[in-house]
């Protein structure tokens, strides 16, 4: 049922709906490029404790020394002009809890993107980040009373320095990879969430990330800690204007699921085609905890992202369900990593990718089972749908199995839309593009059915825009 809105709502293209931009107005804009001075400025503007400045400067050193990763799309990665990016853009110095107080242009942007409306209808909390800084955040009163913390990361650092210091970079250290180091050096914004023991946050929390400025870098840092037996569903959405110059989005997301906790992290990103989206996402699932990544990748020039779950306690479970849509000039290099470090753990990877108009979709996956992890059950499935002869799909599954009694199922399919399917649908009145869209929506159903209804509808609509965009 969730697909219905998607197909019926004939839409506009990205340019109309998301591609707009506001005039650039900043309270502070750091110089182009990255060096010690830029990093110090960021920290100064944020009035951070010394340890955070040291953390940033250490990371900068690592970033400068570390080579680009040799995995992923090396050709595209090498095209990134790190010196051409603006690493810190402060468009507002107020974080409001009331939409009325958000600066006019920023408020209009988020209104166009439907954020306040969504908050009213079906969210328990929202943060909205505009370039480097958060413009709005709010959490429902009852959750505040239960001790739930949902802040932008900068406020998290100010208000809960001990928690941040205890957990930050424990899952993804600065030296993890070049982009994690970069993020650690220049991070700004992102979400900080803490859910106390036994508290179940039943309604989703959402963050919306918007890049507005040209050549902007957005480096949000998200840290979610869910204490014993607690649960949360966090959703993030991302868009940017269509510029001919490249932007860089490089986030770091760390999740900690304590014993018996349940975290579901949903991403619907729809970057414009000039955004390099290079994100490191990793979770730890302790005893009997469940971590689910739902990762929807549309848009961007290059997305490199492999959400990871490390099972560190017995009975832990990790799931990664992802979909990717690679259109003209795009490479979706997405996948998943499951690392089993404890016995009696299990995990699932389900990856669905579509490539079209010369786009390239890659599944890159890792399943690693350490010797101490016995009785592990893993199910990996990746399906690729290629819509024309110019497009490409490739699969790089890696398995490193050292534990005993490991049960792995792996299945991969590559398919094209069958002529008989097209004829069948067209015989029911659907045009060629409507028929293709319906088949594509059906292909992604395994992903969309996991989403709250509103997001499923939105995702199907986005897919339809992609399908139409290519025609026009």
């Amino acid at each position, binding site marked *: *049922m969730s*697909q*219905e809105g998607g*197909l*019926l709502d004939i839409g506009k293209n990205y340019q109309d709906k998301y591609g707009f931009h506001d005039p650039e107005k900043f309270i502070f804009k750091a110089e182009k490029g990255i060096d010690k001075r830029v990093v110090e400025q960021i920290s100064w503007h944020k009035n951070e404790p010394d340890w955070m400045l040291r953390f940033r400067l250490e990371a900068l050193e690592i970033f400068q020394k570390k080579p680009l990763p040799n995995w992923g799309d090396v050709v595209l990665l090498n095209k990134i002009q790190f010196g051409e990016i603006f690493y810190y853009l402060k468009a507002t110095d107020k974080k409001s809890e009331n939409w009325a107080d958000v600066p006019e242009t920023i408020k209009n942007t988020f209104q166009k993107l439907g954020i306040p409306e969504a908050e009213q209808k079906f969210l328990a909390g929202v943060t909205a980040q505009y370039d480097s800084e958060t413009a709005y955040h709010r959490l429902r009163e009852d959750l505040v009373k239960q001790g739930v913390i949902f802040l932008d990361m900068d406020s998290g650092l100010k208000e809960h320095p001990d928690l941040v210091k205890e957990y930050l970079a424990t899952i993804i250290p600065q030296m993890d990879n070049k982009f994690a180091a970069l993020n650690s050096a220049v991070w700004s914004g992102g979400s900080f969430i803490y859910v106390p023991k036994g508290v179940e946050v039943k309604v989703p929390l959402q963050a919306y990330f918007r890049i507005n400025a040209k050549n902007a870098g957005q480096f949000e840092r998200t840290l979610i800690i869910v204490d014993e037996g607690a649960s949360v569903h966090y959703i993030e959405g991302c868009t940017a204007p269509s510029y001919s110059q490249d932007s860089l989005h490089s986030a770091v997301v760390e999740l900690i699921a304590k014993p018996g906790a349940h975290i579901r992290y949903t991403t619907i990103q729809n970057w414009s085609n000039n955004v390099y989206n290079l994100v490191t996402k990793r979770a730890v699932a302790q005893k009997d905890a469940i971590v689910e990544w739902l990762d929807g990748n549309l848009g961007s020039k290059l997305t490199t992202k492999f959400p990871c779950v490390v099972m560190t306690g017995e009975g832990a479970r990790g799931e990664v369900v992802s979909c990717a849509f690679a259109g003209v000039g795009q490479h979706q290099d997405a996948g998943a990593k499951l690392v089993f470090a404890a016995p009696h753990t299990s995990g699932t990877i389900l990856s669905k990718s579509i490539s079209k108009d010369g786009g390239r979709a890659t599944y890159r996956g890792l399943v690693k089972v350490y010797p101490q992890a016995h009785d592990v059950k893993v199910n990996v499935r990746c399906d690729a749908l290629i819509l024309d002869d110019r497009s490409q799909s490739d699969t790089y599954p890696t398995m490193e199995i050292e534990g005993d009694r490991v049960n792995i199922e792996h299945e991969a399919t590559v398919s094209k839309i*069958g*002529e*008989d*399917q097209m*004829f*069948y*649908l*067209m*015989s*029911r*009145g*659907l*045009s*060629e593009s*409507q*028929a293709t869209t*319906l*088949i594509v*929506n*059906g*292909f*992604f*159903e*395994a992903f969309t059915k996991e989403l709250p209804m509103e997001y499923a509808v939105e995702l199907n609509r986005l897919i339809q825009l992609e399908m139409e965009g290519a025609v026009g």
Partner: protein
Amino acid sequence: MSEKLLIIDNLHVSVENKPILKGVSLSVEKGKVHAIMGPNGSGKSTLSHVLMGNSKFQTTQGHIFYEGKDIAALKTHQRAQAGIFLGFQYPTAIPGVTVANFLRTALKAIRGEVAAVKGFRKLLTEKMASLQMGPEFATRYVNEGFSGGEKKRLEILQMAVLCPKLSVLDETDSGLDIDALKVIAEGINRLRGPDNAIVLITHYQRILNYVKPDFVHVFMDGRIVRSGGPELAHELEAKGYDWLDKNLAGEAAAR
């Protein structure tokens, strides 16, 4: 005289340069049910696909007129929008697309308007019940993991929801047990009306016990070789296609 809904005039069709239809002529009036019977491989299914505009087949000669217009230039979806329906012998699975979503999308494509969610649900539930389909059917994926009988039911359900003017049912009866056949036949009978016509393609006479045709045509080697009333079907059932084959050979020799 009733209005002609469909006129097929000396239709010749090939696939990959191999002739399949070799001069089919047939006219169908509104309100009538025509049965086309014939042995396997005689070209019956090809005829149904050509009526629906399957681009796999090339028309080399002849015309199809629907509502008085030659429809050679109409694509498959335009034919559907004009009110032509094909009930498939082998319906295709559309993974991940629910029956409800599929039907609502099709209804919108054909009517050109979005059916209100509530009204559509009611319509769908009613039509499914009449075909003895449980409500869970609406949430299953189109033809995925369906039994033969379920697939055929879904075809008739689509026909019931879309209300076509011309329904071409390609071996809708094959592979059904007697109970399923009765349900399907009742479904077809409910859709008979003064403004629409049905072309029922079948290998066996059996379904014609439940869906009474106005005309019966025998199809052999790419052509209609004999036309008559319902009695022709009984004769064929009793004596077999071989009988007609020999009979025709005799007629040809006598000419």
